[in-house]
């Protein structure tokens, strides 16, 4: 597996003229000059687990960007950069309503998108489960860098839950992208739209993505085309067409 | 997993006009039964997908008793089984037939 590209290097490549993006306790916020305007960056760095405080801090940053867009009339693109753990697993987080906080973060990103902010996810390290859904997966388009390692659950844990031998799961994982961890499988599923080329300027690649945003949610189509989710699009379309019929 | 199919000839068609019904849930020790009125009035086909291998003769007996008792002529019955006991299978089959008779 290629090495993970560090956040510093990513930011340097995105903002050749410098930026005001900071990382505090693993939470990324800030912005920098981008093309004619600015690029807002939020995210998670350093394999950090996302808890209630972190989710609300990121959602605050997203809503601030939306507010700025309201007043300026210019909808800045929002980049959600992720190298995270899963959601923080603790009694306290659940007690305080982690599901609401994560959903709120996702809703903030979806609202930004709805109001015209281009939203782009960038997974450059690990991410999993609720943290992934609330961040990078809540953007219009999700890009990855080689070395990214998204997953829902690692294979030993899958083995424990499904009571299948690890060796068998490993063998199955080689041919079945639908359950196995790893970037290639998330690409095949359609969750990750594109893998960027670290050898080319990142800012240009990002600008190209923003210029050519898909019109809506095309992840199930990608999943069918790439073979990682063979039937989802067909089923969803069948539901839509039956619902539209009388 | 094991697939089993049984075909029976019945003495009569199952009364009622309902085209389709489903009962039960696939879970441990439980099953779902999908009934469709798509066959000739004296024919019944029962296709089973079961999670537990090696009980073909028990299924055969359960199905034969069910057909003799319910006379489900005209029905194609499809079963997804999560390892239900024979009495649960019989019960679900009868519950399904009752829905089709409505």
């Amino acid at each position, binding site marked *: 597996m290629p090495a993970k590209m560090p956040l510093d290097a990513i930011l340097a490549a995105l903002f050749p003229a410098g930026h005001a993006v900071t990382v505090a306790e693993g939470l990324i916020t800030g912005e920098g000059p981008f093309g004619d305007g600015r690029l807002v960056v939020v995210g998670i760095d350093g394999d950090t687990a996302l808890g*209630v*405080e972190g989710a609300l801090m990121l959602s605050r940053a997203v*809503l601030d960007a939306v507010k700025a867009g309201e007043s300026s009339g210019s909808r800045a693109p929002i980049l959600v950069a992720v190298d995270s753990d899963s959601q923080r*697993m*603790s*009694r*306290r*987080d659940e*007690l*305080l*309503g*982690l*599901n*609401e906080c*994560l*959903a709120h973060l*996702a*809703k903030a990103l*979806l*609202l930004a998108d*709805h*109001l015209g902010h281009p939203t782009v996810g960038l997974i450059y390290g690990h991410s999993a*489960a*609720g943290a*992934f*859904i609330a961040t990078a*997966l809540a953007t219009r388009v999700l890009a990855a860098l080689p070395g990214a390692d998204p997953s*829902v659950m690692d294979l030993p844990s*899958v083995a*424990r839950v499904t009571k*299948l031998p690890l060796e068998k799961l490993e063998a*199955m994982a080689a041919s079945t*992208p*639908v*359950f*196995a961890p790893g970037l290639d499988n998330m690409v095949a*599923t359609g*969750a990750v739209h594109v893998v960027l080329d670290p050898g080319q300027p990142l800012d240009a690649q990002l600008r190209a993505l923003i210029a050519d945003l898909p019109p809506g949610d095309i*992840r*199930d189509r990608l*999943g069918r085309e790439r073979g*990682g989710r*063979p*039937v*989802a699009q*067909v*089923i*969803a379309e*069948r*539901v839509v067409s*039956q*619902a*539209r019929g009388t | *997993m094991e697939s089993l199919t049984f075909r029976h000839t019945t003495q009569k068609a199952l009364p009622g006009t309902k085209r389709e019904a*489903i009962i039960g849930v*696939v879970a441990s020790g439980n099953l*779902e039964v999908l009934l*469709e009125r798509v066959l000739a009035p004296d024919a019944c086909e029962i296709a089973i997908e079961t*999670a537990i291998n090696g009980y073909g003769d028990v299924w055969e007996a359960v199905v034969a008793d069910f057909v003799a008792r319910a006379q489900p002529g005209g029905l194609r019955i499809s079963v*997804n089984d999560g390892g239900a006991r024979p009495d649960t299978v019989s019960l679900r089959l009868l519950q399904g037939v009752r829905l089709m008779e409505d």
Partner: protein
Amino acid sequence: MAVTSASADPTRLSWYEASARQRVAAFLDADTFQEFVGPAERAMSPHLPLFELPRAFDDGIVVGRGRLDGRPVLVAAQEGRFMGGAFGEVHGAKLVGLLRAAGAVTPAAVLILFDTGGVRLQEANAGETAIAEAMRAIAEVRAAGIPVIGLIGGRAGAYGGGGLIAGTCARLAVSEGGRISVSGPEVIETNKGAEEFDSRDRALVWRTMGGKHRRLTGGADAYVADTVAAFRQAALALIDRAPAFDLATLEAEQARLEARLARFGACRDGAEIWVRLGVNDPDAVPAMTDAAFAETVAGVPEASHDAR
């Protein structure tokens, strides 16, 4: 308490006990439900056979249209007993398709009857992606002015991605048995140890993520008895009280959740939070009858809001 005969009024059916199909049939106006991609279409999981696992004709979710007090609605109901109601490829695609259809058919509401442990591990990537798709679709449906209402009272609760989808809905109704959470108690215990969360302490589980706790803290907007009729009444009331999906709502939610962390961030237990919310006898909350609990909720301003 329900002491009913087999032929009793189906709306008195226990929500917790009922199957997804029973819930839908008894929840909607009688005989109005029309299913999309029904069981006879045999839209089953293409992946479960690899794991030697049995499939279900509906992949554990029922979707379709019907009427609620005469108003047209779209409805999805998860079957918590099949694979824990978990999101697989087909399961998730059916929900996503229903939500996308809402934009075209403009129902009075979309109702999601949650009963899920989250992502189906055997189809984890498909399930996780479908959850993201569903959340995006809900945002679009809500932005179009159509309320999306979640109902939670099944045996599997609303866990994992299910908890996130629930948090994306405009309104939520929950019963005592309903649980809403991201990580389940067993998952937390497995990862962090029994000192962090003893999953066998059921009372603790419910104080942490159960229906009463969620209602008192504003994590759900209605608390209902465990009957289909009660959920139906709650859904009808919530449809007309759904907040808009706009900046004002999300700013209000941001403030609401920040205030929650500030006030209760140091609490270790649900009962501590209830005290700070002004509940006189927090130890009595778990055993409270539905009526007494409704009275308690009425005295807690934080429980009711438009910030979701």
